[in-house]
C-alpha cells in the first residue's frame, strides 16, 4: 500500500452561490487518525465528500495520492457515509460477497471475522437489522478495504452510547492506522479525544486550526474539548 496523502489547495465549494466550505488548504501526510471537528453545519460533510471525490470543488484543487480526485478515486478511498447507505434487500452475507467481487482490495476474511465477533446474523436482510447493527455493518465494509485512505462521516452520530463505544472499539481494532490515513468527522470531541493523532477544527465552512493533537495538549496544556471551546467561540 502506498503512503497515504491528502492535499487541498484553496478549496471552495458553493451551493447556489452559498459557500459550504471556503478557501481550505491543508496537507495530510502519512498514517494516523485525523479528526475533522466542528458543530453541525460547519461544512464537515461537504469537506469529506470533496476529499472522497464525490463532490467537485467550485474552485481550488483536491488531490489524494497525488492525483486530482473523482469518483474513480474510490480505488484509493473507502468512504463511510453518515446515511444508511447499504442495500436493504441484501443480507450481510450477500453484502460481503458482493464487495469481495467488486473491490479487489476487499478482505472477505477480515469482514467475516468482524461480523462473527459482532454476533451479527449474516442471513438476515439488512432492512431487518437494528439501526446500531446497520451502522456496525457499514463500518465493517469500510474497514475491510485495504486502501490508503479511509473517510468516515460522523461514524458515531445518532447512536446509543453503548453502540458508540462499540464502534470506536471496532475502528481501533481494525483500522490499520499504522498504514492507513483515517479522516473522521464528529461534533462530539470528548468521545474521540484519546483516539485522534491530528485535529482539523471547522467553523462556518472555514478551517480555523489544524494541528497535531499531542502538540496541542502540550502547547495549550488543555484538552481538545477545551481547545475546541476556545477556538470555536
Amino acid at each position: 500500500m502506498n503512503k497515504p496523502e491528502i492535499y487541498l489547495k484553496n478549496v471552495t465549494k458553493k451551493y447556489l452561490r452559498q459557500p459550504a466550505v471556503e478557501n481550505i488548504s491543508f496537507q495530510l501526510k502519512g498514517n494516523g487518525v485525523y479528526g475533522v471537528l466542528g458543530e453541525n453545519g460547519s461544512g464537515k460533510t461537504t469537506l469529506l465528500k470533496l476529499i472522497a471525490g464525490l463532490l467537485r470543488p467550485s474552485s481550488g484543487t483536491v488531490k489524494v495520492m497525488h492525483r486530482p480526485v473523482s469518483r474513480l478515486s474510490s480505488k484509493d478511498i473507502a468512504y463511510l457515509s453518515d446515511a444508511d447507505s447499504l442495500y436493504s434487500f441484501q443480507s450481510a452475507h450477500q453484502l460481503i460477497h458482493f464487495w469481495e467481487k467488486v473491490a479487489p482490495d476487499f478482505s472477505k476474511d477480515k469482514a467475516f471475522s468482524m461480523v462473527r465477533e459482532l454476533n451479527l446474523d449474516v442471513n438476515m436482510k439488512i432492512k431487518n437489522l437494528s439501526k446500531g447493527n446497520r451502522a456496525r455493518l457499514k463500518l465493517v465494509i469500510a474497514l475491510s478495504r485495504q486502501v490508503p485512505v479511509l473517510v468516515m462521516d460522523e461514524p458515531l452520530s445518532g447512536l446509543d452510547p453503548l453502540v458508540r463505544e462499540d464502534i470506536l472499539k471496532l475502528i481501533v481494532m481494525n483500522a490499520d492506522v499504522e498504514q492507513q490515513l483515517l479522516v473522521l468527522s464528529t461534533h462530539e470531541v470528548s468521545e474521540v479525544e484519546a483516539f485522534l493523532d491530528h485535529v482539523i477544527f471547522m467553523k462556518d465552512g472555514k478551517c480555523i486550526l489544524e494541528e497535531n493533537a499531542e502538540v496541542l495538549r502540550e502547547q495549550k496544556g488543555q484538552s481538545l474539548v477545551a481547545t475546541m471551546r476556545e477556538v470555536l467561540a
Partner: protein
Amino acid sequence: MWWSLYKKEWQESLFRFSLSLALLTAAYVFIYIFMERETPLVFAVSLAVVFLHIFYLFIMLLASLIKEWKENTSHLWMNLPVKGYVLLSAKLAAAFTQFLISISYAIVAADLILQRAMRMFEDSAAEGLTGIISMLVPLYRELIPWVLLAVTNGALQLGIAAMFIFIFSKVVRPFGWLAAIVLTILANYIYTWIKNIPLIERSTEWLPLLKGEEIYKKIYALYPGGADLMEVSEGIMTNVYLGQIAAELLVLTGAFFLISWLLDRKVEL
C-alpha cells in the same frame, strides 16, 4: 465483478419487474376474454401494452437510478472502485434482460390472442373474409422479428436517454434534467438530419435484411386484387439494412460511454 453488479441490479428491480409482469398478464387476459365485446377498450389496452414495452427501459432505468439516490445507496454505489461503464452497463443489462423476457411473453400472448380471434371470425365472418384472416397469423409470425427490432431500437434509445437525463441532473444543478431533455431532443434532431444526408444514408445501406416491397406485397395480398394497387405507394417503401442497425448501435454505444464518462468525472452526490 460485472456479474455481481448485474445480480444486485436484478435483486433490486425484481419487485418492479414482477409488478410489470402481473399488470401485463392482467392486460392479456382482459384482451383475450373481452376482445369481441369491448373492442375499443381492448384496442386501448393493446396500445398501452406496446407503449409499456417501448418505454420499459426508460421507466426501469430511471426508477433504478432515482431509487439509488433517494435511499442514499448512491453513497455506496458511487464509492465502488469500479469504472462507470461497468456500473451503468450492469443496470442497463439487467433492465434489458427483463425487457426481453417481457417482450417474449408479449409475443406469445399476442399469438394466442390472434389465434382466438381467427377462430372467432371463422365462426361468424362472411365467406370472403376467412381467407384474409387465415393469412393473418402466418403474416404476424413472419413480421414479428421486425416489429421486435423496431421496438427494441426505440426502447434502447429511450433507455439511454433516461440514463442521460438522470446523470445530467446530477452534473448540473438545479434543472439539469430539463437541460438534458432539451439536449436529448436536439441531439436526436441532429442525428436524424445527419442520417438523412444522402452520402451518409447510402453509406449505411449495405446488407439489406428486409425489403419493404415484399412486406407491402404481402399486406396488399390480403385484399382480393390488392396487388394491383401497389404501384401507387412506392414512395413510402423502405428497406431495413444491417448497416443501419450497426450505425444505430454505434451511436447508442457512443452515447453510453459519454454518460459513463459523466458519471466518473462530473456527477456529484
